[in-house]
């Protein structure tokens, strides 16, 4: 498999995995949970390195997952006290965990070339070089890993579609009809944390955060219905993956960054041009209204 194909395939799988969860995060006002988790896992990675001296994927993922769970639980605990709002709770917890990680690197691992951006957080450009044997075929490690995550997310969203939908739009009604919004919220955050942690290792944190939030936000500008929104989110993610790869080749710049940039450009287009909710459509509508009012008042005023 060619390197470029591997990179694009990996990015497509990550975009799918993220695109399935992103709409629910955006609609539930939990979009920044992904950013929080992406920073909070640092001490886990450092801890694994300090204790076992390894940066192999499985222990790193386990260490990161441990701290992702700690992060989510700590945010929940602050929120449950009723004294701190959810956004402030997020902002208290993740910088603290990140600070622990930085101190860990500074004290124990400064000589070990733990490089924040690339080695730890992964870089999609390296995906083709990290290979593994699968059924006797040599294949980039990231593809089966991220592919599995995408499949799990797909199964989750399909199996719990009704539950996710009702708890997202009307938690009170969901509670009275026997779905626990709390349980589903936990499950969703857990899925996001797993997706994030597993994908960081393959493609880097910033790309995962971007693909979780930006395509879903763009899709939200375009549609009111949940199912089209999820499909659109995945599609925009794919556009970002393929377009970003092209852009990165043309500019000879970071692939993850370019994919994020294309996703952001898609969002900007949606923001401006969306048929009903876009900025231009709204301006035109206001203009029409103003003209109508002027016409109706015209003879009198």
């Amino acid at each position, binding site marked *: 498999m060619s390197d470029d194909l591997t990179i694009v395939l990996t990015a497509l799988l990550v975009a799918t995995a993220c695109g399935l969860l992103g709409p629910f995060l955006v609609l539930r006002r939990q979009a920044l949970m992904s950013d929080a988790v992406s920073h909070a896992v640092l001490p886990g990675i450092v801890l694994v390195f300090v204790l076992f001296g390894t940066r192999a994927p499985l222990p790193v993922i386990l260490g990161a997952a441990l701290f992702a769970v700690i992060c989510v639980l700590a945010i929940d605990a602050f929120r449950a006290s009723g004294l701190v709002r959810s956004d402030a709770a997020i902002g208290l917890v993740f910088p603290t965990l990140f600070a622990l990680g930085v101190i860990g690197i500074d004290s124990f691992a400064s000589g070990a070339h733990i490089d924040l951006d690339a080695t730890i957080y992964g870089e999609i450009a390296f995906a083709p070089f990290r290979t593994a044997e699968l059924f006797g075929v040599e294949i980039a490690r990231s593809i089966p890993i991220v592919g599995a995550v995408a499949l799990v997310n797909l199964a989750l969203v399909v199996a719990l579609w009704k539950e996710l939908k009702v708890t997202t739009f009307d938690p009170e009604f969901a509670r009275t009809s026997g779905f626990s919004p709390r349980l589903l919220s936990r499950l969703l955050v857990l899925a996001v944390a797993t997706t994030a942690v597993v994908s960081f290792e393959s493609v880097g944190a910033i790309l995962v955060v971007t693909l979780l939030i930006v395509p879903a936000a763009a899709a939200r500008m375009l549609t009111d219905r949940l199912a089209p929104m999820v499909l659109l989110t995945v599609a925009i993610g794919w556009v970002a993956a393929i377009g970003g790869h092209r852009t990165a080749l043309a500019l000879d710049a*970071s692939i993850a960054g370019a994919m994020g940039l294309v996703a952001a450009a898609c969002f900007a287009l949606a923001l401006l041009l969306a048929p009903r909710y876009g900025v231009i459509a709204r301006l035109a509508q206001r203009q029409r209204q103003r003209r109508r009012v002027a016409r109706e008042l015209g003879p009198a005023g």
Partner: protein
Amino acid sequence: MGWLIDLLPLTYTESVVLIGATILGVTAGVLGAFAVLRERSLLGDALSHAALPGVAIAFIVTGAKDASSLAVGAAIACLAGAVLMVAIERTRRLPPDAAIGVVLAGFFSLGIVLLTYLANFNNANQAGLDTYLFGQAAGLLERDLVVMGALCVASLAAVTLAFKPLKVTLFDRDFAGAAGLPVRALELAMTVLLVVAVVVGIRTVGAILMVALLIVPTVVARQLAHRLSRVLVLAGVAGGAVGATGALLSQSSGLPTGPVIVLVGFALATAAVLLAPGRGVAWRARRLLRDRRRALTESVLVDLETALHAGPPPTAQELTLASGRSPREVAKALRDLDRAGMLARDGEHVRLSEPGAAAAHALLERRRLWSLWLEHGWQLELPDAREPDPTDVRASLGDDDAERLVELADAAEARGAR
């Protein structure tokens, strides 16, 4: 600033870092309050990520890694990000956190692309631009302190001067608009102030750790005060204290400054959430336990009084049977009563002492008044519509109305008898 540096019993660098961290803490504390109270705590997160492309563009334009031009670039990019965020929110299609997330991801991606693109020109000079975002307190100069101090004083003065309009806009946007205040300009002003704090902070503690520094002081202050003016002052004090303590601790331990400041801040915020008088988690738990204990003691007191009415003084065992509570609870309540001098024991049997009987009667009287209030309270003509305190109706209504309640009840009873 020179005199202050000479005054401190520290080395030159240590003094500069200490003063810088304190100024930053005060500024971030006061200005962060406007973000946290509007439920935009993570605005700082987006702003500090948005600085990256600004830094890159400033480098492209000036071709030098000069701290002040980089800061100006960062500030412009932050402002652009903030304005974009407001524009996204105003479409009303996306919640504030999604707007923050989009700006954060978009700007940061742009920054990465610009930095990697720059790297192609093999201009070794650009290396290390991204570390700008991680902050380096030790790199602070005396000149930076002067700039930081001036920005701090200017922004605090702005907050003081515009305090009232800012407050109204913060808590009741619609009312502020109706009262003729320039709401949008004021909200923009709050955001600009936040940008100032973020740009100042990025250089000292780094982008991500700055997020915590904006939030911690307000969380702490909010536990201790309810008025905005006091919250702002306390947030400034808490921020300054966190900055100074963190700087000193990092110097004595040899750990990096930014992370230590954040850890100190987290510890303070957690302590405030747990222990704040009246509001803290531990405080509320203690009050709950106390209330439960008192309710238990009172109910056993009433059971004992009832038993004494019905027959000879009961033993603790008989009392347990009569009250339908567990033996442990009854024993605990009897211990409390004993300690308060309300019991007189005849061997195994318990009686009420003089003060105990008085307390039981007072308690029954209070309970009776509450049921009278529930039944006849509607006939009272009271000056206001407040509900009296169930545990002490007499004190809430006043003696006259309490007597009137008893009369009403007696009259109703007389009518019922006829």
